Each structure stands twice: as C-alpha cells, then as structure tokens.
C-alpha cells in the first residue's frame, strides 16, 4: 500500500455504532447461571423473527398466503416523497410488522412492474423466483421508511381532542369530547377564562372588510388562516372546506422554509412563479450531472428513486457527476472512483459558481445556439427541438420607460394582435419583427422605433451575457471558494456532453441569495438545451388526478364561495394596496411598511411576521395541520413568544397526531390519523417520467377515539362536523356532483376518498381493469370492500378497488420516452429573461432586480448587504444545515432511528478545528447574530473551510422531549427525544425590517438557513 490513508473516526455520524453487541464482559458469567436464563424465543434458530408474509415454491411459483398476515399496498408518509409501499399487517393485533416497497410504484422500484400484473404476481416479483431471483424488481423502503411505522404506536400520540389548561405553551391539557371541541371552535365564547374569543361562525363574515379602508384584503373571513405541512393527498378536502366553504383565501404550506428558494428560482426559469415547475435530470441516461444544493442518495425527493438510479448509473451505466456542497455526504461514493466527485463550496454562493460556468459557456461557445435561436414553439418544432426559450425576444432596457424590464410586444410597435395574441418581438435588420417560425438573432442591443418613440431594447440572451460578464471568473471563484481550474473543469464537462449533461438542485438553495442562485443553476440547463430530452432534464409525467375526473367533480360544487383578497403572506403586488396608493398620493410610494413578494407563492415564513405584527392585517384564528413552523423556521424563536399571547392570535387549533413544537402553543389539539391509518392520493414531485398516482388507505384500524357517529376523530371528521354545524356549502347529503350533475353526500371521509379513487381509476384513455376477487383478497382491500360498494356505483367500485389493491395507478414504464424525447414534455418557453421578475420593484426599496440569472451577495429587506451588518471580522464562519438520510423534522418519535444516530454533533473541518484547538468530542459554543447553542464537535475532512454544519432533525422540545400533562397525569419528557441541536435556533431576524420578521431571500421570501454568519469557541 503506497498511499497513506486515514480513516477519520467520526466520519459521518450516520451508521455510527460502537459495536454490534454489548461485548463480552457482561456475558461471560452467564455460563455459571445455568441453562437458558433469559426469555425463550418463538423459535430456537430464528428467534423472534417475524413469520413470513407468504411462502412461495421457487420452482413452481406456487404461493401460499399466511392467513394471519395481511399484505396491502399503500403509501409511506415518512417524508415528502410519499413512496408506494407494501405493508405487512398482523391482522389480529391490528399492527404493522414491517414495510417493503410496492413493485408497481416507480418511487420504490426500478424498473417497476406493469400495472396489469395481478397482485399475486406482484408478490412473486419480490420473492426468490424467476429471473433475477426477486432482485430484478426489488422494491424497497428506505431506512426511515422502514422505521416510521413505529409512529403509529408512539406512546405520546394524541388520541382524543385536547384543550389547553392555563396559559398557551404551558404543556397542560385536558381531554374534551368531540362535541365540545366542535362547539367551542365554532361558537367561541370565554373559552379559557381570559375573555371572549370569537368562534369561526363569527369570523366567517364574507362582507365586512378585514381591514377598514383596505378592501383589497377581502372580508373578515380571511382572518381564519391555515398553515399546512406538505400535501399528503388530503389538502384538496382542506381547500374545499377553507376556501370554497368557509371563504378564507389564506392557506399556506411548508415550502418557504423547506426548499422554496430552489422552486422559485426554477419557477422563474419555467415561467411560472406561483406553481414553480421544476425538472430533474434523467438520471439513468445522463452522462454528466452537476448537483449543487442537492444530495442524490443522501436525501431529497424522490429520495429512494434518485438513490437507486444514481447508484445504478454510476456503476453499470455511463454517469459521472459532481456534488457541489459545503459538506461531503452520502451523495459521493468512494468505491465509484472518478464517477463521483465532491467539490467544496462556500455556503450560499452557488450563484457565483453558476455565473462563472455561464460566462465560460459564452466564452467557449458551448451554449446551444441553435436551440436558443428558436423564438417560438413552431420554430422549435421545425428545427427539431424539444423545447424553446425566449432568449431571442427583445426586452425593454430603458430604465425610464414605464415598461422597463418587460418584453417588447407587437403593440409597442403599433402591430395588431396576431393569432396568438400580442406578439413577442425579435431583432431583424430593419427593426423588430414578431417572433416567427424561423431562427432569430441571439444577441442584439439597439433602439426600437416604438409608437411612443425610440426605445433601447436588448435580447434576453444579451442581458444574460451582460450579467455573466459583469464578473470575472476569478472574482466568481473568490466568491464561491471553488478554484478556477475546477470551474473550468465543470464548464468543460457540462459543455462536452451536450444534451446528456444536466444541473440539479433543491433544498441547499435556502440561503440569502437562494433565489438567484437557483435561477442561475437552472439557466445552465437552458443554455445546454437539455429540457425534454432523454439523458437531459425532464418534468414529472403527471398523474391520474383524484379531484377532477370522469366520475365525480370534487373540485367544484354549486354554491361554492369564491375566496378573495391579497394574501396574508404578502406574496402579491404591493402596488395594489391602499397603503401604496396613500403613499403614492404623498409622493413617496416606497418603502412599504414591510416586504411584499409578488413573485413568490404562499409564504409560511412571512405569515409568522404577519401573525405577530398584524401587517398587513390581524388574524383571528390559526389552524395548523401536521405542520411545525415553530421548529422549522430559522429565527422563529424571536417571534414564537409573541404567538403565545392570545391577544396576538386569539384562537390556535392544531390538527396533529403529536404535540410538536407548534401544536404546543395551540389552544386545541385535534387528533389525527398516522401513516397507514390515513387516506390520500399523491403524485410525484419529479423524477418520474410516467403518469403516477399513489393511493393511501387505512390498512389498519385508526387508533383515535371515535365520534358519536363512529368515525375516527381526525381532520376529516373535524372539518365535516364543523362544516355541518356552520352550514358551509359543499358538505352534507348533497355535496359532490357526478358526471351527470347528480349530487352525492359528503358526510364522512369515505364519501370523499372513495369517489377520488373512482376518478383515479377512470381517468385517462382507458379505465383500469376491475379488481378480481383474488386481487381484493390478496391485498386485503376486502377490508374496505363494503364501503366501496356502498359509496360507489356498481360500474365503479371494482375499478376503484384496483387502485387500492395496487397502491395507486401507474402508467407503464415503456411510456417514459418517445424516441429520444420525454413523452410528457414541458411546453411553455424557458425564460432566459423573466419579465415579471425583471419589471417589479421591491416594496421595501423601490428598486429593481435583474430579470435573468445573476450572482448577488445576500441582502436584507432594505437592500443593505448582510455582510455589512455582520462583517467577517466578527462573524468569520458560515453555518449550514444538512439533511440526514434517516431523521427529518417529524420522525424523532420512531425509536429505531435514534438507535442508529442518537444525536447530531456539530461538524467542522480539520483546519478550522485546528485553528480553535477543537477535537472531536469537545464541547463548543456556536453563535450567530440570531442565537447561540452549545454542542459536541465532530471534526471531519469533508467540511468546507470556514463552515460549520448541523444535521437537521434533532434539538426538539416537542414530541415528548419535555413533559406533557393531560388531565393531571404527566407523560414525563424523554431527553432522548430532545437530543442534539437545531440550526434554526441560530436563525436571524432581519434587523432592517420595521415589523419584526425573520431573514428571508428578497425575491422568494424563503427562510435562510444556509450561510448564517457565525463564530465558534471551544468550551472548558
């Protein structure tokens, strides 16, 4: 061995186990104690191992089910990926024993089996029989997916409605009846002995403006605001209740403190800043992928699918890749040699890297000019392209022009609208002409003779090139900490593989520059021209929707309310507010009293500021559903205390199976179903080229207490009961229209989800086949067969049964591609210049931002640089968060995960450690302008210089980490559940905001957890 090598103790904390067992010393004396001093296991050789789910004769394939076991295909909700899984249930004990994958599901299997396969044959596919001996269609659950079934039996689960006793957040509760829960929340009153609280009936005023003199915010009903976690396939019912029934427009999810910056940056590229489409590399066929801010095979969505495909592609396929990350993680793989490479980056500077690469692509001529030159869908089709861009479209580049930053249109030139509306204009020798069916000039900087006079115009690509050329590669290199030679190598790899190269990103974009960093990274894909190509980037193939289908219309109904008003999170145009108009009249329209984000989706991050500060208006009631912003938002500690004051938000209700950090400050906790007890339909976020709907149904009896009518007390029972009591439209005996317009009831969960299943089954070119008796029996859909027959029509129920028997509906894998192209293609143009972005003014500054990819160092709301407030001499380090393959923000209650990784030490690199005399195991204090924490150090090679990294998912105060008292009986806190530290405790508030708010990205409004300025010291 010629190379000296070190194996660092304490490498990655995951997989960290002292020894297999407890060692010899304690056991040597057992011999003396005599024969079999312990418990006698079920079997002398196989111990207490679970009984096999079925037996199969490998020679004949003959299958014998275990009559005590049910095997059902349903969905894991252990993370946002929501994989199709196969659950093994002990029928008598109503207990899930183990989880494996669903071989029909692309989330768990590659290649997944054909949907026409019988359930029995799907079992055979995973046994040791046939080609591949069960490994050809190996279908898996990940480490967390294997463990989270433990949450069902979590001893700290809420099974009955709770009402707080004493002040908010005191951890004191009383059990109340379902009837009392619904009555108090509906009617209000002096609920806590603290004075009168308005109930939902009173709040549901659809006429009176919520803020006097500001009709743009809509009616008082908007004072009920709903924070959701992730759409687990139940949001459609929530939205029906909240928007169309109650009449509030205020609903938000967790994205703004998850991976929202990436999604927004991608949304800018894809031309939709609200829905935020995004593509993923075709992992199986790409030759080179640059991963920045995402870690395939370490975490992400779809975690398993990407892990499987990347592992296969780097070993058996042709894929090489680089992972740009401040922290070395499982995405890199030593045994794959040069196929995978880790590149250190200074946190939050990915935009500098991307702009350097873009600059090099312009310089080297490796941009895909032929692709970029096509100015329309027709031109792209004629040129054999699979997508198109607005690279050649002209942009108004004159600051004084009222439409500065907008695209030049035919109407500007006095042209009548064409067949496709007001045309975009491209450069031509005699002046701008409408984008046509031929190629157009890529670069142009000139003056257009508009009907209002001459106006400076440039092509979108010219503006991008100017932005890229604004910095030297050396300057970009200095900003991101990646050597010029490495940047050149990346640019060359991305250039030389043509459309088989791709860039991918996600949650690592959550820095103060996150939006532009993400837009810049995604711009590289557009310059390559890889969208919709095999081996390039592809969007998700879509799904078979549950809400709007051929059988029932679950999305609309007679009498539905149209909720209205500018959003509570200020993700709308400030210029539409009365505040703006008043300030304009005073001649000083900017700055606004707080930031607005017209180019962002709903923002939970900003809601917290709105809730605490009452800007733009006060909320009267907050409903949290399976969500935990108090744990998840960096810097929230500075606002959370305020939310404990009932005068700030008078009513807080949490619908959650657990008392997490957020439900801990609720007035009421409504229990909810967990994992395999729940209903829902979901689609892949990305990474699956075919249409796919995953179905979830209660494969075990839910553990919650029952309503008087016998339904499990959970979200559905709660919303339906409230709707009936308040008389909300869209619920009751006549609520759901079928295709003929006949109304059907919505009085229990089954009325909703079984009709959704019928829609899934009947959607598309042809309906799914009817489930056979064997399918129904083998999948234990027999458990819900009576409900299927009672709710659905005779022609529907067996097809809906197929959807549950197979755990969803999946288009055959053969429909991924059409020749060299993605079959499900994204049609709208890529936005080399995004005019919504390029034309808006920041409400807090009145200034503009580039409408194309750019590198911008982080700024606070007033436009000042974060680095000027917190200079490097005081705060020399950057703190980042990274995802664990095992633990997430809501999985800590699965004890097996803590057996593998019990805590999260703070990781730092060897040079930084040496500088401070820190060794692995030392106690350290880490401080930012937002907070401090003390923890244990883990010294690694695989951390970028000047960087400190914290694994997410630890440092809980909720979930039972502290005491919970119910009816005077205390569940003592378990310190194991509170082990470790939480990066969000270090999060910053923005010191420049008039109303308190956490530090967010200026465009996307998303939380900042990557690149917090910090310092470290050794303790003791």
């Amino acid at each position, binding site marked *: 061995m010629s190379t000296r090598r070190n*194996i660092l103790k304490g*490498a990655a904390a995951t997989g960290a186990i002292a020894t297999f067992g407890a060692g010899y010393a304690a056991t040597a004396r057992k011999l003396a104690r005599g024969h079999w*001093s312990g418990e006698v296991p079920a079997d002398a050789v196989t111990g207490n191992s679970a009984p096999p789910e079925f037996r199969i004769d490998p020679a004949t394939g003959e299958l014998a089910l275990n009559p005590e076991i049910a095997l059902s295909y349903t969905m894991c909700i252990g993370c946002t990926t929501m994989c199709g899984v196969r659950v093994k249930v002990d029928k008598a004990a109503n207990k899930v024993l183990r989880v494996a994958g669903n071989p029909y599901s692309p989330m768990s299997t590659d290649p997944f089996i054909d949907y026409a396969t019988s359930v029995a044959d799907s079992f055979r596919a995973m046994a040791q029989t046939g080609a591949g*001996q069960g490994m050809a269609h190996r279908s898996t659950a990940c480490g967390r997916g294997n463990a989270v079934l433990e949450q069902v039996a979590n001893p700290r689960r809420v099974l009955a409605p709770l009402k707080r006793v004493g002040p908010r957040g005191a951890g004191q509760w009383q059990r109340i009846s379902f009837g009392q829960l619904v009555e108090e929340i509906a009617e209000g009153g002096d609920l806590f002995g603290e004075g009168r609280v308005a109930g939902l009936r009173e709040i549901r005023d659809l006429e009176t403006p919520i803020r006097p003199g500001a009709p743009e915010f809509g009616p008082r009903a908007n004072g009920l605001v709903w924070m959701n976690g992730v759409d687990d396939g139940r949001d459609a019912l929530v939205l029906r209740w909240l928007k169309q029934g109650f009449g509030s427009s205020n609903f938000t999810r967790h994205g703004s403190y998850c991976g929202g910056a990436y999604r927004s940056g991608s949304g800018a590229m894809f031309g939709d800043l609200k829905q935020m489409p995004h593509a993923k590399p075709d992992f199986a066929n790409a030759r080179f992928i640059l991963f920045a801010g995402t870690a395939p095979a370490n975490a992400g969505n779809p975690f398993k699918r990407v892990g499987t495909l990347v592992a296969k592609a780097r070993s058996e396929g042709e894929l090489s890749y680089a992972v740009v990350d401040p922290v*070395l993680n499982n995405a890199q793989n*030593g045994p794959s040699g040069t196929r995978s490479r880790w590149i250190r980056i200074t946190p939050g500077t990915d935009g500098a890297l991307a702009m350097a690469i873009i600059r090099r692509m312009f310089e080297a001529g490796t941009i895909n000019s032929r692709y970029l030159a096509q100015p329309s869908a027709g031109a792209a089709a004629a040129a054999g392209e699979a997508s198109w861009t607005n690279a050649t479209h002209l942009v108004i580049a004159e600051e004084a022009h009222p439409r500065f930053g907008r695209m030049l249109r035919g109407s500007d030139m006095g042209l009548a609208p064409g067949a496709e509306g007001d045309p975009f204009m491209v450069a031509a020798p005699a002046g701008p002409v409408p984008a046509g069916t031929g190629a157009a000039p890529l670069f142009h900087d000139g003056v257009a003779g508009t009907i209002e006079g001459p106006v400076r115009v440039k092509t979108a690509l010219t503006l991008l090139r100017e932005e890229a050329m604004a910095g030297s590669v050396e300057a970009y290199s200095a900003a991101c900490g990646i050597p010029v030679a490495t940047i050149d190598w990346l640019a060359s790899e991305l250039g030389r593989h043509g459309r088989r190269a791709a860039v991918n990103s996600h949650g690592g974009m959550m820095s103060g520059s996150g939006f532009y960093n993400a837009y810049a990274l995604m711009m590289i894909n557009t310059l390559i021209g890889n969208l919709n190509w095999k081996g390039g980037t592809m969007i998700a193939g879509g799904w078979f929707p549950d809400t709007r289908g051929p059988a029932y219309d679950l999305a609309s109904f007679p009498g539905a309310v149209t909720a209205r008003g500018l959003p509570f999170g200020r993700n709308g145009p400030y210029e539409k507010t009365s505040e703006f108009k008043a300030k304009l009249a005073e001649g000083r329209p900017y700055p606004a009293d707080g930031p607005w984000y017209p180019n962002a989706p709903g923002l939970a991050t900003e809601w917290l500021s709105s809730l605490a500060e009452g800007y733009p208006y006060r909320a009267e009631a907050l409903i949290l559903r399976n969500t935990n912003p108090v744990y998840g938002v960096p810097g929230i500690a500075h606002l959370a205390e305020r939310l404990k004051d009932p005068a700030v938000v008078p009513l807080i209700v949490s619908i959650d199976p657990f008392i997490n950090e957020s439900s801990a400050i609720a007035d009421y906790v409504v229990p909810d179903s967990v994992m395999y007890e729940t209903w829902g339909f979901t689609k892949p976020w990305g990474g699956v080229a075919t249409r796919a709907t995953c179905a979830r149904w209660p494969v075990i009896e839910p553990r919650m207490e029952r309503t008087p009518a016998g339904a499990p007390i959970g979200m559905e029972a709660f919303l339906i009961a409230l709707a009936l009591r308040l008389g909300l439209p869209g619920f009751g005996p006549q609520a759901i229209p079928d295709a003929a317009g006949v109304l059907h009831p919505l009085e229990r969960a089954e009325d909703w989800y079984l009709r959704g299943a019928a829609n899934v089954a009947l959607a598309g070119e042809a309906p799914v086949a009817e489930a056979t008796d064997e399918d129904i029996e083998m999948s234990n859909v027999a458990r819900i067969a009576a409900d299927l027959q009672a709710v659905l029509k005779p022609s529907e129920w067996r097809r809906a049964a197929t959807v549950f028997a197979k755990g969803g509906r999946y288009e055959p894998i053969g429909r991924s591609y059409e020749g060299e192209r993605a079959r499900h293609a994204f049609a709208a143009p890529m936005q080399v210049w995004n005019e919504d972005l390029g034309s808006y003014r920041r409400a807090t500054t009145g200034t503009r931002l580039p409408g194309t990819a750019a590198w911008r160092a982080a700024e606070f709301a007033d436009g000042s640089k974060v680095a000027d407030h917190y200079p490097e001499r005081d705060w020399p380090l950057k703190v980042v968060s990274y995802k664990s393959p*095992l633990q997430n923000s809501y999985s800590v209650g699965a004890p097996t995960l803590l057996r593998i990784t019990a805590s999260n030490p703070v990781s730092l690199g060897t040079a930084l450690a040496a500088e401070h005399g820190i060794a692995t195991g030392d106690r350290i204090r880490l401080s930012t302008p937002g907070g401090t924490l003390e*923890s244990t150090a883990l010294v690694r090679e695989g951390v970028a210089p000047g960087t400190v990294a914290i694994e997410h998912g630890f440092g809980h105060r909720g979930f039972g980490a502290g005491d919970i008292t119910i009816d005077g009986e205390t569940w003592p806190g378990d310190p194991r559940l509170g082990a470790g530290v939480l990066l969000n405790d270090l999060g910053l508030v923005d010191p420049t905001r008039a109303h308190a708010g956490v530090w967010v990205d200026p465009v996307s409004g998303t939380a900042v957890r990557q690149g917090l300025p910090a310092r470290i010291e050794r303790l003791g």
Partner: protein
Amino acid sequence: MDTTRRGFLGAIGQVSIGAAASVAGADPAAAETGAPHWGMVVDLRKCIGCQACTVACIMENAVPEDAFRTHVSVYELVAEGQDPAMVMLPRLCNHCDDPPCVPVCPVGATFKAESGEVLVDASRCVGCAYCVQACPYDARFINHDTQTADKCTFCFHRTQAGLLPACVETCVGGARNFGDLNDPECEVARMLREHQVSVLRPEMHTNPNVYYIGLDEVLDGRVAGEAAYRPPFDAAPARHGEGL
C-alpha cells in the same frame, strides 16, 4: 499452509473468479443434492448508506435494543493529496465456510446449516459468549432478552419460505445481492464471475460467503465499527440559546 479452496486467495485479499465451476462458496457435494449454498455479494458502488437494511433487519428480526445483526458503517476516507471520499460498508455475519465461531462452542449450539448459513440453536446455547469472542467480524452478540448468542441468520426463516432476506429486499441502492452460489444462473454467481471481489479479514482464512465489490484494502480489516462515531448520549447535552 492453508490449502482450502479459497484460503490462498483470501490471503491476497482479493478474489477473482473465472468460471461458474469454481465459484467461491460452491459446494460440489451440495450441488448434487440440490441444496442451495447461500451467499451475498455487496456492490459498494451502489450502497448509499441509507440504513434501510439496518432498520429492516431490526424490524424483521426483533433485534434487541442494544445490538445489531447488520448495519452500514460510514467512513470518510482520506488519501494523501486527494479529496476525502465516502465509503459505506454494510456488515453482517459472513456465514463462513470455515467459521471460527463453530469449534469454540462448548455445547455444539452453533452450527453450519446444509444451505451454508451459520446458525445458533438457542435451545442448546448457554450464553457463554465464546463464539462472540471468536468471530473475527464482530458479528455476534449476546441477546439480553434470551441470554443466548444472537446473529444474522441470512433470514433463514424467509429463505425457507422462498423470500429474500429483509436487508436484501429493502436495499435501495441495490448493493446487497443474495442467492445460491451453487447455481451458475444466479445473479450472485454471475456477479462473482464478472467482478473482482474482496472479503473482509482475508488473513483469517474463514472462507466467508459475503463478498464485496469495490472494497478498498484499507477497510478490509475494519470490522469492529470503531471507525464510525456515535456521539455519546448525554442527558443534557445541548443548550438552546433564545437569541441575542
């Protein structure tokens, strides 16, 4: 000198298998009876360190709180002048053909099954832990519930039913591959033919039935799990600041 089938190869640390007839682990006598000879090939290029195997094993086999039958050690490997690299090393009982744990058992509780598994008959085991000491792979422990020796069985109860071991069934990266080394058509036999493979602790001449693709020689002795770091659990380790 060791003259067993693979001992001489093991001493080199890497095994190159040419033809099915000489597949490592193949037992000509067993092949005639039709009995399988189970083996595992772990392709380290495919392991993503997700610990699905670790958890599936615990769930499947009710592994007691303080022990593991299998897990994945995660290493950060640093070669001079190179970037550090991640190596995930799945570990389990190697089901050796020359298992050091068998001869030391004073009561004959540990035995080699016809299909190749090294198993423990708990009804005979007295919990003396000699086998725990003898195992060069640190793959055994005393089960504190039963007070007997415990270890991976290659999911004997599942293979008897025609099913894959739990860890193999759930392997997300497709790193763990399992099958009958006697069957040249079997996936694992093909992998042994087509790849250069290594074993752990080759100097022990145990003739293991667990093979690795892509095992760096520096790791072939790392079997005790000591390289990985498990932060000691401290009842009050973390202080959460509430902000400056």
